[in-house]
């Protein structure tokens, strides 16, 4: 039975989980709420009915032990997929992730085939502890792979690759992207980890982004195109290991870099990209590299305080305009803003 060729990323993730579990009985899926009526934003829907309560199960509210239990099960032959409704909750499990999962292969020579799905919130008053984008923390730890899909097809292809990868993978899902519609192949598709995608080719500026910032960058690129400016947009897909070959080759060609990040600026992945480009491409640069990230400030809850909190397509256009010395910015070619800044679309009525 075939389905609509266009589905959203939440459905794509669900399809990837179904296909992984159907293919390999070692795949187990656990997490608080995987079998509840909301099924982690529908991403785990139908799994327990199809694969049984032994392989798909709800857990105690014990993030740290459950992560260690998943690592132990992985070492004993399972291929666990853990699901957390917010990245912020998972911080309790950093001991197991950092001290065990990340170090195990290097220290003991045995692999830990574990995928940890973490959802990063934004908007509708998610506030200081439900919306953190801490990808840089994970990327900092040797031994982890860190994946950040930006669209529905990538969510499926990267999740399948993550599940069948033999290393621990932190799979970061931006909550707004769950709603992103796109053409997703029905069959088992695998996208290589550690390989970026060039979303648009251009010679004016290299824009490097991941996850939700790819969406904002695409809007910015389309607007700039109307002014005759072609940007190269690199979607990292995986931030650790990072596809430096693609990034550096592009910057050597364009001579300009704007690195985008969904996390706070200090210590960000975007900062790392600026540093590496400055060190390795200095001679090719025509302008100082720039980065656009979140302020070094907790995300507030109030509708008013978040209004200018998140940089988007407008700020991207403005940064590139500054880099290129544009006298006029083609802002009128950006899609019309929907009425409320704190939702992914006007159809959304909250809560998350």
């Amino acid at each position, binding site marked *: 039975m075939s389905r609509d060729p266009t589905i959203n990323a939440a459905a794509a993730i669900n399809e990837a989980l179904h296909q992984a579990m159907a293919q390999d009985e070692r795949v187990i899926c656990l997490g608080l709420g995987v079998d509840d009526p909301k099924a982690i934003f529908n991403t785990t829907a139908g799994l327990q009915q199809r694969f049984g309560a032994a392989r798909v199960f709800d857990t105690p509210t*014990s993030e740290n032990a459950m992560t260690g239990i998943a690592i132990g099960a992985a070492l004993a032959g399972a291929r666990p997929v853990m699901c957390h409704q917010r990245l912020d909750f998972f911080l309790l499990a950093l001991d197991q992730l950092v001290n065990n999962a990340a170090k195990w292969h290097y220290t003991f020579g045995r692999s830990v085939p574990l995928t940890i799905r973490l959802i990063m919130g934004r908007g509708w008053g998610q506030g200081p502890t439900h919306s953190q984008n801490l990808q840089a923390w994970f990327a900092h730890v040797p031994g982890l*792979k860190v994946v950040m899909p930006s669209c529905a097809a990538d969510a499926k292809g990267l999740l399948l690759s993550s599940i069948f990868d033999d290393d621990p993978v932190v799979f970061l899902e931006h909550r707004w992207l769950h709603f992103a519609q796109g053409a997703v192949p029905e069959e088992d598709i695998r996208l290589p980890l550690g390989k970026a995608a060039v979303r648009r080719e251009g010679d004016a500026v290299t824009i490097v982004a991941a996850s939700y910032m790819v969406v904002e960058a695409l809007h910015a690129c389309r607007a700039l195109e109307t002014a005759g400016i072609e940007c190269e947009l690199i979607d990292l897909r995986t931030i650790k290991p990072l596809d430096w070959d693609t990034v550096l080759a592009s910057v050597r060609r364009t001579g300009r870099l704007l690195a985008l990040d969904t996390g706070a600026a200090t210590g960000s992945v975007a900062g790392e990209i600026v540093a590496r480009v400055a060190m390795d491409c200095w001679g090719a640069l025509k302008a100082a590299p720039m980065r656009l990230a979140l302020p070094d400030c907790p995300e507030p809850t109030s509708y008013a305080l978040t209004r200018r909190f998140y940089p988007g397509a407008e700020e991207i256009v403005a940064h590139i305009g500054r880099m290129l010395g544009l006298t006029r910015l083609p802002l009128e070619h950006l899609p019309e803003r929907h009425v409320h800044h704190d939702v992914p679309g006007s159809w959304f009525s909250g809560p998350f």
Partner: protein
Amino acid sequence: MIEALFQSMLRIRMVEEEIARRYPEQQMRCPVHLSIGQEATAAAIGLALRPQDIAVSTHRSHAHYLGKGGDLNAMIAELYGKASGCCGGRGGSMHLSDERAGFLASTAIVGNSIPLGVGVALQQQLSGVDTISCVFLGDGATEEGVFYESANFAALRKLPVLFVCENNLYSVYSPLSKRQPDTRSLCSVAESLGLSARRLDGNDALAMFDEAAQAVASLRAGEGPVFLECMTYRWREHCGPHFDDELGYRPQGELAAWQGRDPLDTLLQRMGVGMAYRAAVAAPIAEEIASAFAAAEAAPFPLENSVFDGIYRMECAS
């Protein structure tokens, strides 16, 4: 069995004493946490388990590794940082592993290996095998949140986990009395979490073996997780080869009292044999130990340019 128990305990004691004796040579350049005084638990549990049963342990794991059948040469070489070490020199004394002996790993963070053992048990249950998982922990680890979380899940799923808690009364220099209320026992906590708990004389190897054998049988029968609190005592310093009683963190006479209850002497008396028996058992062990140290000293270091190898199992395309 009783001979095997004594042999295992004596071997652990002699290995630890040789490490202590040679540590000042500065060739074992990593922290060591010796188990002298605590040999009975490791020997009794090790013998009650099958090689296919999987154990995990802590920073103080030499005894558990050896009791479970871990390779002595690979352990000593690991302490020397050599390529022939059980982790190729990447882990040192606090990261021992011997897959063939069913010793999955020891890890160096208090409480950190507890959920790993529970996870192994989950997979054992899911795959329907009749092996069990054994988690060695100390009294300090019962103060970590992860112990409660792990015990809760083990009880919830009736997992085949044997929690072996060596209560040596100290977390580094901090006595249990400063860390937990004296109106509450570790066993009562374990019971209330849903574990079947028993407190044992951790220096009585034979009694512990009998208890452990019963516990293992009930675990194989699917009767749910068991917690054994083994009362024992660390003779030497927390980390390093020396005695440190002069620091005054333990009441005067406490060490002497526990040394008077040496698990090796206790078992010898039970066996009705004396020092001649002990010497006869010791002779081949001494040879084995001398050979392990000689091999470790002679072994090559890992290649310096291998330092970045194996961060991942699967390298990425780029």
